[in-house]
Each structure stands twice: as C-alpha cells, then as structure tokens.
C-alpha cells in the first residue's frame, strides 16, 4: 500500500469565494510588501476601490482583519489561518495543473484561481492523494509516468503560443505531410511560432533558420512538445 501523507487541511473556510480571494490576496501582498494598502488589494484583484472597502469592512466585522479607513490592512491570527488554508489549496492545484497535467505555469495558476473555491474538501483530498502518488511514482522513474508525460505534453502546433519553441514529435498523415517533411518538418526538429496572422490564420513559424507560414489546418497535423526555454539545442 502506498502511504499518502494527507495531513493537509482541506476543511471548508465558511467564507464566500470573494472573501477567500480577499484574504488570500492580503496574505500574498503582505509577503511582498511591508504594508498593505486598499489600493494594492484593488489592483491585485482588479476590483474597484469602493467595493474593496465594503468587503474589508465585512472582513473586519468577522474579526479576520484589522483595518482603518484610508489606512493599512492587517490579517488577524484567525485571518492568517484562513489565508494559509486558501493559499495551500491554490498552490497544490497549480502544482496539479502544471506538474501533472503539463499546463504552462502561468495558465495553470489562472485555472487554479478559477476552480479553487468550488472544489469540495473531499475532491481536494482525492486530488492531493493523486499528486502525491504521481510524484512518488515519477521519482522512481516508473515507465507509465513517462508515457503519461509524453501524452500530456503533446500539442498540435496550432496550440502553441506566439514566441514559444517546441520540438516536433510526429506529423499526422495528411495530403501535406510529404511537402512538409521535404521542407524540413521532421521528427526532432525545433520549431518556433513567430506569430499568428492578424486574422489568426496562417501561422508564421521558424524552422531550420527560415521562416515559413502554415495554415492552422496544416499546423494541426504537426504534433509537437513544448521545449523549456533556454535549451534551444539543434540535433
């Protein structure tokens, strides 16, 4: 039996998701800055100042923060505890999307923000177990984790964002396959998406030191794996 350390606390916070966001962002801001102002919170959550003020008053009523009008904002002890909880949940979800599902870190972070409040503590626990299991298995270099990685890392070229480099894994059978391979689109070749045309179709890519444009339809047949930036090695 695999032993999972499920010590992490996923109990519900009894706060609305908005309130959770406030607490979380105050905590994160206070780690970065000495003092937290209302306008910092407004900026980081992209919410208007008056709404922030109203929310802060509610939080103060609940005894989660110390807050003076036009002054600094502080989390109380119980506030800190909640912030910890919310933040933990957020970061383990980000890990899940990034480390397991191989979604780019920035986007993984965004997705985590969207789902963190809606997951029940039960679902959180189960996902947490899965992550732990996956991590221990992949640290032992189990073959299945590698296969899973390969599968999850695969993208069609049309899903790669501007400026990103990827490496070709294979090209699906299509009428253009031959032409593409003759022009240098081959397994193991690095390919960088330079830009999308103003109307999002064709895509300009760079391969073998030259630039070429492909229609999205053609790019879909090219299966690639993102290359972590900085390791632009040519075979």
């Amino acid at each position, binding site marked *: 039996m695999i032993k999972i350390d499920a010590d992490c606390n996923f109990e519900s916070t009894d706060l609305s998701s908005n309130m959770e966001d406030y607490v979380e962002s105050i905590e994160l801001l206070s780690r970065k800055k000495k003092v937290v102002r209302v306008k910092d919170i407004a900026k980081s959550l992209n919410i208007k100042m008056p709404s922030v003020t109203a929310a802060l008053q509610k939080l103060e009523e609940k005894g989660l923060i110390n807050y003076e009008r036009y002054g600094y904002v502080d989390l109380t002890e119980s506030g800190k505890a909640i912030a910890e909880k919310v933040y933990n949940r957020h970061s383990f979800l980000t890990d899940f999307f990034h480390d397991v599902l191989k979604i780019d870190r920035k986007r993984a972070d965004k997705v985590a923000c969207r789902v963190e409040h809606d997951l029940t503590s039960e679902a959180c626990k189960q996902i947490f177990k899965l992550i732990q299991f996956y991590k221990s298995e992949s640290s032992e270099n189990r073959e299945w984790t590698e296969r899973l990685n390969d599968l999850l890392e695969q993208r069609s070229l049309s899903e790669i964002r501007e400026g990103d480099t990827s490496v070709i894994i294979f090209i699906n059978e299509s009428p253009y396959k*031959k032409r593409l391979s*003759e022009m*240098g689109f081959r397994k193991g070749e690095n390919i960088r998406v330079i830009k999308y*045309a103003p109307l999002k*179709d*064709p895509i300009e890519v760079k391969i073998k030191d030259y*630039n070429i*444009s492909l*229609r999205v339809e053609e790019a879909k047949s090219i299966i690639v794996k993102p290359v972590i930036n900085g390791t632009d090695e040519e075979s």
Partner: protein
Amino acid sequence: MHKKTIVVGLAGNPNSGKTTIFNALTGSRQKVANWSGVTVEKREGRLSYKGYNIIIVDLPGTYSLSSFSIEEIVARDFIIGSHFRRSQHGEGRKSRFSGRRRHHNHSHHAQFFEEYTHQPADHPDVIINVVDAGNLERNLYLTTQLIEMNARIVMALNMYDEAETKGFNINTDTLSTLLGMDIVKTIATKSIGIDKLLDAVINVCLKKSPKTRHLHINYGADLEKEIKNIQETIWSDEEIGQKYSTRWLAMRLIEGDPDAEKKLKSFTNYNNIKKQVQESKTEIEKKFHDSIDTVLTDMRYGFITGAIRESVTRTKAKRKDLSEKIDKFVTNRYLAFPILIVFLWLLFQLTFSLGKYPMDWIEKGVSLISALFEKQIPEGPLKDLLIDGIIGGVGGVIVFLPNILILFMGISFMEDTGYMARAAFKMDKIMHTMGLHGKSFISLVMGFGCNVPAIMATRSLESTRDRILTILINPFMSCSARLPVYVLFAGTFFHKYAGAVIASLYFIGVIFAFISAKLFRAVFFKGESTPFVMELPPYRMPTLKTTLLHMWDRGSVYLKKVGGIILVFSIIIWVLSAYPKTDNNEEYNLKIEKITADYKANRNILISRHGEVPEELNMLKDEYLSKKEQLQLEMKSEQMKNTFIGKFGKIILPVIKPLGFNWQMGISLTTGFIAKEIVVSTMGVLYHASESEEEGALIKPLNQVLKKKEFGITPLIAYTFLLFVLLYVPCLGTVVVMGREAGWSWALFSIVYQIILAWIVCFLFYNAGLLLGFR
C-alpha cells in the same frame, strides 16, 4: 570555327536568388515562353563565354522534385532529358558536347525515351544548382534529389555574404568533396562569382573537374538492401538495365512516381518489378513504422545533416535579424491591414493614375498618325482598314503597356523585397474561405483598374490551380472601362442615388467573384488541396537591374504574345463592325446640302429684314448645326445597323428581350466586347446623341436622350442593363490574356460561363423587379 554549345539548367528553391543569377548570367538576352503544353513559364537566355555558346534555361523554382506539381514535373523532365541517355555507371554520357547522341532502335524503349526528349535545348549538359547559403540545410534537399538523378551539377552557393552575417561559416572545399560537385560562392545581386561559375560549368563539361564525381546517397543498410532487390529485378530485362540508371529507377518506383510506373508498363518484366517494389515498400514501412516517403526524406536529411556537420561551423550572428524587427510592424495585428491598404493604394494609383499620362500620349500619338494617313492616302476600303483597323488596333494594344510596365515594377518590388509574401500572409484567411490563395488578392485588386495587367499579375502564384481560379474570377472585378457605362446610366436614371448604384455594382461583382470561385473550386478542382507552406523570405533590398528586367520581361511578353493576337482580333472585329457598307453618304449629303442652302437663304432674309443682329444670327446657326449633326448621326446609325455586328445585335434581340433590353442595347453590348467603354460611344451613335454632357452642346446629350419615353428604358431596365455589363463577358483583351495565361479552353469557358450567368442573373432580377412593382 563552329562554336560549341553548352546547355545549362538552372535549378533551385524559390527565394534562393535563382532569377538574379539568371539575370546576372544572361542580362537582357532572354526569351520568355511557356513549357510545351503547360502554362508554366520557361525562361531561356544565351551568352558567349570563352568561345562557348551557353544556353541557360531557368527551371521553375521548387523545393523538391518528387511532389509532382506541374512545376516540379517540368523541372524534373528537363533534367531527366539528359539522365535517360546515360547508363548506370556514368559511362556513355554522350551529349551534344562530347559527341553525338546515341541512337535507339528498340521501338518501345525508344518511345519511353522519346517522351523525355524534346527539342535540342531541352537537354541540359550541366545543372547549376542555386543554393541559398543562409538556408543551407533545406536547400540541399533539392540537391540530394539532383544527385540521385545523376545530373552533373555545379553548385552556386548564393548570398554567402548574408549567410556570414547570420553566423554561418561554410567550408566549401569539404562540402564540395562530400557532395561530389564543384561549389562556387556567389553574390548574384553584385554579380560576384558569376565568371567562376561559368568556368566551373565549362570544366565539368570538359571533365576537368576533379571534384565532380558520381555519388550514391547511402540510405542505410535496410533501405539499400531493398533498393538492390528492385535493381536486380529490373536487370532481369537487360535492355532497361543497360539504358537507364536502375538505381534511379528503383528509387522512383519505391517513391511511387506514377510517371515512371506508367512508362515501365511496356516492359516484359513489369509485373515482377511491380511485385518486388510492393514487397520492398511493405518491408521498409514495417521496419520504420512510418510511410516510405517519410523514411526517404529522413534519410536524405540525415545525409545533409552529416555533410553540414563536417563543413559548416556556426558562430553568433553578427547582427540581429532585421526581418523580424520589420515584421513587428508590417504584420502587426493592428498595423497589418492599414499598411497593406497603403501599399495597394499606392500600387493602384501609380498603375492607373500615373499610367494615365503615357496612355494619353499614346492615344494622342495614334490619332496624330491617323490624321497624317488621313491626308496622304486616297479614300477607299484600304484607307479605312489602315486607319480604323490597323492603327486603331495597334493603338488599342500599346495603350495598356504603361499600365503593365508600372504594375510589374510595383509587383517586382513587392516580390523582391519580400513584402508580397507578407501581404499573402495577412490576406490568406479571407482568401482561403473563398478557396483562393493569399496572393490572389493583389491580382484581384488590380482587376479594378484593368483586368489585362491584373491577369498577368497572377504569375506570382506558384500553383497553377490557384492561378487559373484567380484568372477566371478576375473579370468580375469592375474594371475602369466599365465605369463610364455605370456613370452614364446611374447618373441618368438614379440621380442622387447614382453613387450608391455604382457602389452596389462593384460590390455585386465581388460577390459573384467569390461565389464563382467557390463553385469552380468545387467543380473543377475538387479534393485537391494546395498546402499553404509559403516561405516568408527575409526582407531584401531589390536591385534596379532585376526590377527593370522584370518590367521588360512582362512588357515584351505582352507585346509579343498578347498584343499580336489582340491586334488580329481587333482587325477582325473592326471588319465586322465596318462591313457591309451602307452607301447612304450621297443621300445624306444631299439632305445636308439642302439644309445648308436653306440656312444660307434664311440667313440672308434675316439680314435683309433686321440687319446683322448677332443673337438672331447665332440662333439660326445653332439650329442649323444641330440639324446637320443630327443628320450625320442618323447616317452613321443607319450604317452601323447594317454591319455584321449591327445585324448580330438585332438578331440577338429575342434573347435579350426578356431582360427588357432594346435593339440599341443589343448592338452596344455586342460592340462592347472589344472594350467595355465602347458601349457608351455605340449608344451615342445609335441614339443620335452626343456623348458629352456639356451644357449648350449642339445636340441633346445621351443622358437626356436615353430618358425619352419612346425608348422605354425604365430605371429597372437601366439597372438590369448595368448588371449585364458588369457580368456578361470579359473584353477582347482580357480574353486573349486569359488564353495566354490559362489556356484557350479556359478563356472560352469564361466567355460562355459569364454570358450565361449574366443572362440568368439579369432575367431573375428584371422579373423579380417587375413582380415587386418596380419600373
């Protein structure tokens, strides 16, 4: 002494600077034609060098020789022309250069061979492979295929200065040894290395080149084994084995070249060969878990990667990629379309507004010459033919020349700088929904000026299919010659809505272009998809020489190939519109004399009664002159009605009656085939009206006459007529250019299609209009 002739084929990727090398080699001594049977351009140039006559044939730019597009077939067949004469071991490479060609007396083999044997200039002695040094890896792919064809190759390592800035350091000695061919560094835009290239070509012909050797690209043990199996099967018929490179044939067969297969059918062991090929294929695909094409491509690239590893070192680029910086603006999300519009607007203005001045000079010159002949030559049919038929016809041909020269200057500039590819990149999404290519856009926009140069501009499209499609829908772009007709009718019948009416016609034209494009794609080019793998070459400075040569090229193609035919047709049409003659001059001269006499008499009476009162006299004179002009127009109109075209216009009346048209419209539409603006002048004659709308004109202007009740033209009929003029038929010049660029059957098809389309659309429109109660 008789000079020896060397035939050189120029092969290379698009954007490798092949055309610049060609220009640097041959200067203006080039001739442009089409490859026999296809509408792919063939350029040939000649030069003398160190006592040799060198013929240079510019092959279509291709990335490969195995995908079987028309361009690739043309290039491949040309190169093979020399190949099929060779035995496997490179012996008996008998060309014109080293001796006489071998004779073949086995009939079916001779036939196999004959198909690759065109005129003498179709057999290259040497292939110059132009390679972009800054993009070596991909360019060498074509080289590997040339090597496989046993061609004798000299490589022009072009733009090596650019490659050096990019940080490439190419050891040509090593590369030359590895590839088994001479390599000459060139910078074609500065004419550097051109003489050395020619020296190398001659050396190869004299077999004095130590580097040139026959090379087999090793495909690895697994593949080599199968190639050998096939070769052995082929050898079972000694005859093929002796004549053709069996290795090459084996390669072609394994790659599934339908051409090679078709031609092997006549051999006794065809079935055995086919079976062996199939077995080998299956074997290979099983071993590599991939299609045979991919395996072969991989192997070739493997060979290339190996050669590059040993001969190229890479340092850091000396300067940042300028192209990407420029592209930040040019293909920027927000700036892309404004920039494109500015470019197109400039191109349009230059072509058609600036081009108007030389056009006016030409027209003036032509009328001057006509006037000169008018005085010199006695009256008679010959005079009419010379002045109206020939001089008029020549004038009608060269009048397009300024447009064509300026447009191609612009297009050449856009292509050579690399902007053309970007324009296509931006527009492709829109054009592709219509089944067209991004590059079709330029031609279509130019169509609003004149369809003739616009159709010639489709040459920049690489795929013949896209080209034909773009040509076919071009006439739906309302050219400037249709504008006078629009202005006349819209102004006459729609007054303050004239602008909207004209705009609607332009818009409807575009709609029909796109509908037709979709239709043609679905009917004629079903299931064939052209991949849009379009290279975006780095921005480069165009050279004046290339631009001028390009202009000269197009201009001379137009004058020689198109002009001649237009001239012949316009003379024929002139004859049809001038004959049979109606001899009513006498009759009308009598009438005119009579009113002249009347006028004189009245004038005298007036003077004797009131003295010389200028107002009264002027009134009388005006009245007289307008009567006189009226009579002259009646005379002409009578003559026109009796000519072949006039009769034809009347014959078709039953056909156009359901559209609400009258016989005057029928004749005008018929003469409009020569050029759309002639519709207006014909109407002027037929309605006895003046074309000009100037105030105080002597006779009633056309726009007033058209409205007269007795002619029965309602606004509904007027709009139907405009629709018909928009759609009905490309003008003579356009048809001829279509014939040249797409083939005569397409030109004919276009005429038939458009007439039928115009009729149906107008019929539906007119009757729907009537039903809805419009008049």
